[in-house]
Protein backbone atom coordinates (compact mmCIF):
# COMPACT_ATOMS: atom_id res chain seq x y z
CA UNK A 1 0.00 0.00 0.00
CA UNK A 2 1.38 3.44 -0.89
CA UNK A 3 1.88 6.07 1.80
CA UNK A 4 -0.89 8.20 0.27
CA UNK A 5 -3.45 5.39 0.52
CA UNK A 6 -2.27 4.62 4.01
CA UNK A 7 -2.72 8.25 5.07
CA UNK A 8 -6.19 8.28 3.46
CA UNK A 9 -7.14 5.25 5.55
CA UNK A 10 -5.82 6.96 8.66
CA UNK A 11 -7.85 10.06 7.84
CA UNK A 12 -10.95 7.92 7.44
CA UNK A 13 -10.27 6.51 10.92
CA UNK A 14 -9.83 2.91 9.78
CA UNK A 15 -8.94 0.75 12.76
CA UNK A 16 -6.59 -1.46 10.73
CA UNK A 17 -4.63 1.54 9.50
CA UNK A 18 -4.04 2.73 13.06
CA UNK A 19 -3.04 -0.77 14.13
CA UNK A 20 -0.49 -0.75 11.30
CA UNK A 21 0.72 2.72 12.27
CA UNK A 22 1.30 1.63 15.87
CA UNK A 23 3.09 -1.51 14.70
CA UNK A 24 5.37 0.56 12.48
CA UNK A 25 6.12 3.41 14.86
CA UNK A 26 5.70 2.28 18.47
CA UNK A 27 9.37 1.36 19.00
CA UNK A 28 10.68 4.41 17.15
CA UNK A 29 8.42 6.83 19.01
CA UNK A 30 9.13 5.17 22.35
CA UNK A 31 12.89 5.30 21.63
CA UNK A 32 12.72 9.00 20.75
CA UNK A 33 10.74 9.73 23.90
CA UNK A 34 13.39 7.91 25.94
CA UNK A 35 16.12 9.98 24.32
CA UNK A 36 14.49 13.12 25.67
CA UNK A 37 13.01 11.71 28.87
CA UNK A 38 15.17 8.86 30.18
CA UNK A 39 12.49 7.16 32.23
CA UNK A 40 10.64 4.12 30.91
CA UNK A 41 7.24 4.93 32.43
CA UNK A 42 7.31 8.62 31.52
CA UNK A 43 8.46 7.80 27.99
CA UNK A 44 5.62 5.32 27.55
CA UNK A 45 3.07 7.90 28.75
CA UNK A 46 4.45 10.45 26.29
CA UNK A 47 4.45 7.89 23.46
CA UNK A 48 0.75 7.28 24.15
CA UNK A 49 0.09 11.01 24.01
CA UNK A 50 1.90 11.14 20.67
CA UNK A 51 -0.38 8.50 19.12
CA UNK A 52 -3.47 10.21 20.56
CA UNK A 53 -2.31 13.47 18.97
CA UNK A 54 -1.67 11.70 15.65
CA UNK A 55 -5.17 10.20 15.82
CA UNK A 56 -6.75 13.58 16.53
CA UNK A 57 -4.70 15.63 14.06
CA UNK A 58 -4.26 13.28 11.11
CA UNK A 59 -7.05 15.09 9.23
CA UNK A 60 -4.95 18.27 9.38
CA UNK A 61 -1.89 16.51 7.93
CA UNK A 62 -1.30 18.13 4.55
CA UNK A 63 1.59 16.01 3.38
CA UNK A 64 4.17 18.82 3.37
CA UNK A 65 6.57 16.38 5.00
CA UNK A 66 6.65 12.60 5.20
CA UNK A 67 4.40 10.91 7.73
CA UNK A 68 7.40 9.80 9.78
CA UNK A 69 8.82 13.35 9.98
CA UNK A 70 5.41 14.63 11.06
CA UNK A 71 5.14 11.97 13.77
CA UNK A 72 8.68 12.67 15.02
CA UNK A 73 7.86 16.38 15.14
CA UNK A 74 4.85 15.64 17.32
CA UNK A 75 7.04 13.36 19.46
CA UNK A 76 9.65 16.07 19.96
CA UNK A 77 7.01 18.65 20.87
CA UNK A 78 5.30 16.32 23.31
CA UNK A 79 8.63 15.53 25.00
CA UNK A 80 9.51 19.21 25.32
CA UNK A 81 6.04 19.95 26.70
CA UNK A 82 6.54 17.21 29.31
CA UNK A 83 10.01 18.46 30.28
CA UNK A 84 8.77 22.05 30.54
CA UNK A 85 5.95 21.02 32.87
CA UNK A 86 8.19 18.87 35.04
CA UNK A 87 10.94 21.46 35.24
CA UNK A 88 8.49 24.18 36.21
CA UNK A 89 7.45 22.07 39.13
CA UNK A 90 10.94 21.01 40.06
CA UNK A 91 12.84 24.25 39.91
CA UNK A 92 12.22 27.66 41.32
CA UNK A 93 13.61 29.23 38.20
CA UNK A 94 12.12 32.63 38.93
CA UNK A 95 14.18 32.89 42.12
CA UNK A 96 17.32 32.00 40.23
CA UNK A 97 16.64 34.64 37.61
CA UNK A 98 15.79 37.24 40.28
CA UNK A 99 19.05 36.76 42.12
CA UNK A 100 21.06 35.86 39.03
CA UNK A 101 22.53 32.83 40.75
CA UNK A 102 24.04 30.14 38.59
CA UNK A 103 22.95 26.86 40.08
CA UNK A 104 25.66 24.21 39.69
CA UNK A 105 24.96 21.04 37.76
CA UNK A 106 23.22 18.71 40.15
CA UNK A 107 21.77 15.32 39.32
CA UNK A 108 19.29 15.41 42.22
CA UNK A 109 17.41 18.30 40.61
CA UNK A 110 16.82 16.35 37.39
CA UNK A 111 13.17 16.39 36.32
CA UNK A 112 12.64 12.63 36.37
CA UNK A 113 14.02 9.49 37.96
CA UNK A 114 16.73 8.17 35.65
CA UNK A 115 15.60 4.77 34.33
CA UNK A 116 16.75 4.25 30.73
CA UNK A 117 16.51 0.57 29.74
CA UNK A 118 18.92 1.00 26.82
CA UNK A 119 21.87 2.24 28.87
CA UNK A 120 24.35 -0.30 30.21
CA UNK A 121 24.85 -0.33 33.94
CA UNK A 122 28.50 0.71 33.65
CA UNK A 123 27.48 3.84 31.68
CA UNK A 124 24.55 4.68 33.94
CA UNK A 125 26.37 7.26 36.07
CA UNK A 126 27.98 9.04 33.11
CA UNK A 127 24.67 9.07 31.26
CA UNK A 128 22.93 10.63 34.25
CA UNK A 129 25.55 13.39 34.33
CA UNK A 130 25.14 13.98 30.60
CA UNK A 131 21.34 14.12 30.78
CA UNK A 132 21.51 16.54 33.72
CA UNK A 133 23.79 18.76 31.66
CA UNK A 134 21.50 18.53 28.60
CA UNK A 135 18.66 19.67 30.85
CA UNK A 136 20.53 22.95 31.38
CA UNK A 137 20.76 23.74 27.67
CA UNK A 138 18.42 26.14 25.87
CA UNK A 139 15.54 24.22 24.26
CA UNK A 140 16.66 24.45 20.62
CA UNK A 141 20.20 23.31 21.50
CA UNK A 142 18.77 20.48 23.57
CA UNK A 143 16.63 19.29 20.65
CA UNK A 144 19.49 19.43 18.16
CA UNK A 145 21.94 17.65 20.49
CA UNK A 146 19.48 14.95 21.58
CA UNK A 147 18.34 14.16 18.05
CA UNK A 148 21.88 14.07 16.69
CA UNK A 149 24.02 12.64 19.49
CA UNK A 150 21.54 10.46 21.38
CA UNK A 151 19.09 9.52 18.66
CA UNK A 152 21.68 9.44 15.89
CA UNK A 153 19.71 11.40 13.28
CA UNK A 154 21.43 13.19 10.42
CA UNK A 155 21.49 16.99 10.05
CA UNK A 156 18.97 16.69 7.23
CA UNK A 157 16.54 14.65 9.30
CA UNK A 158 16.87 17.08 12.22
CA UNK A 159 16.32 20.05 9.92
CA UNK A 160 13.12 18.45 8.59
CA UNK A 161 11.79 17.68 12.08
CA UNK A 162 12.65 21.07 13.55
CA UNK A 163 11.87 23.02 10.34
CA UNK A 164 15.24 24.80 10.59
CA UNK A 165 17.98 25.06 7.98
CA UNK A 166 20.96 22.69 8.05
CA UNK A 167 23.47 25.53 8.82
CA UNK A 168 21.38 26.58 11.81
CA UNK A 169 21.33 22.96 13.03
CA UNK A 170 25.13 22.87 12.71
CA UNK A 171 25.41 26.10 14.65
CA UNK A 172 23.03 24.84 17.36
CA UNK A 173 25.04 21.63 17.71
CA UNK A 174 28.30 23.54 17.95
CA UNK A 175 26.91 25.79 20.68
CA UNK A 176 25.30 22.85 22.49
CA UNK A 177 28.60 20.99 22.57
CA UNK A 178 30.49 24.03 23.83
CA UNK A 179 27.92 24.64 26.58
CA UNK A 180 27.93 20.98 27.59
CA UNK A 181 31.73 20.92 27.78
CA UNK A 182 31.64 23.94 30.07
CA UNK A 183 28.88 22.50 32.26
CA UNK A 184 30.60 19.14 32.54
CA UNK A 185 33.98 20.72 33.26
CA UNK A 186 32.43 22.73 36.10
CA UNK A 187 30.72 19.60 37.38
CA UNK A 188 33.90 17.54 37.49
CA UNK A 189 35.94 20.39 38.95
CA UNK A 190 33.42 20.81 41.76
CA UNK A 191 33.16 17.11 42.44
CA UNK A 192 36.69 15.85 42.07
CA UNK A 193 39.01 18.72 42.91
Amino acid at each position, binding site marked *: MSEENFIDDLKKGHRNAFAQLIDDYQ*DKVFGKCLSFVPNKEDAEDIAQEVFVEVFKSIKKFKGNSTLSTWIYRITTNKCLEFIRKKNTKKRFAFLQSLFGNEVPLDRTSYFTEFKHPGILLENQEDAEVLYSAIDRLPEDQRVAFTLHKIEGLSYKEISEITEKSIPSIESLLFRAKKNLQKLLLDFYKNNYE
Partner: protein
Amino acid sequence: MKNKKSIEEQIDRILEIGNSIDDVKASPFFKEKMMNRLFEESSQEENLIFPWFTPRLQLASLVCVIALNIFAFTNLDSTSYDDSINEFAESYGLLATEETSLFD
Protein backbone atom coordinates in the same frame (compact mmCIF):
# COMPACT_ATOMS: atom_id res chain seq x y z
CA MET B 1 42.28 14.24 42.37
CA LYS B 2 41.89 14.06 38.69
CA ASN B 3 44.09 16.08 36.40
CA LYS B 4 42.69 18.34 33.70
CA LYS B 5 43.53 15.97 30.88
CA SER B 6 41.67 13.03 32.36
CA ILE B 7 38.64 15.25 33.03
CA GLU B 8 38.65 16.40 29.42
CA GLU B 9 38.89 12.81 28.24
CA GLN B 10 36.00 11.86 30.46
CA ILE B 11 33.92 14.76 29.10
CA ASP B 12 34.64 13.70 25.51
CA ARG B 13 33.63 10.14 26.38
CA ILE B 14 30.41 11.32 28.04
CA LEU B 15 29.47 13.45 25.05
CA GLU B 16 29.68 10.36 22.85
CA ILE B 17 27.67 8.15 25.21
CA GLY B 18 24.72 8.20 22.81
CA ASN B 19 26.62 5.76 20.58
CA SER B 20 26.50 3.10 23.28
CA ILE B 21 22.77 3.29 23.96
CA ASP B 22 20.99 0.11 22.89
CA ASP B 23 17.76 0.13 20.90
CA VAL B 24 14.70 -0.20 23.08
CA LYS B 25 11.34 -1.75 22.37
CA ALA B 26 7.97 -0.56 23.57
CA SER B 27 6.06 -2.74 26.01
CA PRO B 28 4.35 -5.76 24.37
CA PHE B 29 0.99 -4.43 25.62
CA PHE B 30 1.55 -0.95 24.21
CA LYS B 31 -0.38 -1.54 20.99
CA GLU B 32 -3.37 -3.11 22.73
CA LYS B 33 -3.49 -0.31 25.31
CA MET B 34 -3.21 2.29 22.58
CA MET B 35 -5.93 0.79 20.37
CA ASN B 36 -8.31 0.62 23.32
CA ARG B 37 -7.55 4.19 24.26
CA LEU B 38 -7.94 5.55 20.72
CA PHE B 39 -11.12 3.77 19.76
CA GLU B 40 -12.87 3.83 23.15
CA GLU B 41 -12.30 7.57 23.51
CA SER B 42 -13.62 8.25 20.02
CA SER B 43 -16.70 6.04 20.48
CA GLN B 44 -17.46 7.82 23.76
CA GLU B 45 -17.25 11.13 21.95
CA GLU B 46 -19.69 9.89 19.29
CA ASN B 47 -22.20 8.82 21.91
CA LEU B 48 -22.66 12.31 23.29
CA ILE B 49 -26.30 13.51 23.24
CA PHE B 50 -25.51 17.03 22.07
CA PRO B 51 -22.16 16.83 20.34
CA TRP B 52 -22.55 20.40 19.06
CA PHE B 53 -22.97 21.74 22.60
CA THR B 54 -19.27 22.20 23.14
CA PRO B 55 -17.75 23.43 26.43
CA ARG B 56 -17.36 26.92 24.89
CA LEU B 57 -21.05 27.07 24.07
CA GLN B 58 -21.90 25.71 27.51
CA LEU B 59 -19.85 28.47 29.11
CA ALA B 60 -21.40 31.14 26.88
CA SER B 61 -24.90 29.90 27.77
CA LEU B 62 -24.08 29.94 31.47
CA VAL B 63 -22.78 33.53 31.20
CA CYS B 64 -26.00 34.56 29.38
CA VAL B 65 -28.20 33.00 32.07
CA ILE B 66 -26.21 34.65 34.86
CA ALA B 67 -26.29 38.04 33.07
CA LEU B 68 -30.04 37.75 32.54
CA ASN B 69 -30.58 36.96 36.20
CA ILE B 70 -28.42 39.87 37.34
CA PHE B 71 -30.27 42.20 34.96
CA ALA B 72 -33.64 41.00 36.20
CA PHE B 73 -32.60 41.24 39.83
CA THR B 74 -31.23 44.79 39.55
CA ASN B 75 -34.18 46.09 37.51
CA LEU B 76 -36.92 44.49 39.54
CA ASP B 77 -38.80 47.30 41.23
CA SER B 78 -40.78 45.95 44.18
CA THR B 79 -43.56 48.59 43.91
CA SER B 80 -44.16 48.02 40.23
CA TYR B 81 -44.11 44.32 40.96
CA ASP B 82 -46.84 44.79 43.60
CA ASP B 83 -48.87 46.97 41.19
CA SER B 84 -48.64 44.34 38.53
CA ILE B 85 -49.73 41.68 40.96
CA ASN B 86 -52.69 43.78 42.10
CA GLU B 87 -53.68 44.52 38.53
CA PHE B 88 -53.51 40.86 37.72
CA ALA B 89 -55.54 39.97 40.81
CA GLU B 90 -58.16 42.59 39.97
CA SER B 91 -58.51 41.40 36.40
CA TYR B 92 -59.19 37.89 37.51
CA GLY B 93 -61.23 38.79 40.57
CA LEU B 94 -58.76 37.38 42.99
CA LEU B 95 -58.69 40.32 45.43
CA ALA B 96 -59.70 39.34 48.97
CA THR B 97 -61.80 42.56 49.43
CA GLU B 98 -63.94 41.85 46.37
CA GLU B 99 -64.89 38.42 47.50
CA THR B 100 -68.50 38.17 48.56
CA SER B 101 -69.21 36.16 51.59
CA LEU B 102 -72.22 33.94 52.00
CA PHE B 103 -72.81 35.60 55.36
CA ASP B 104 -73.01 39.22 54.01
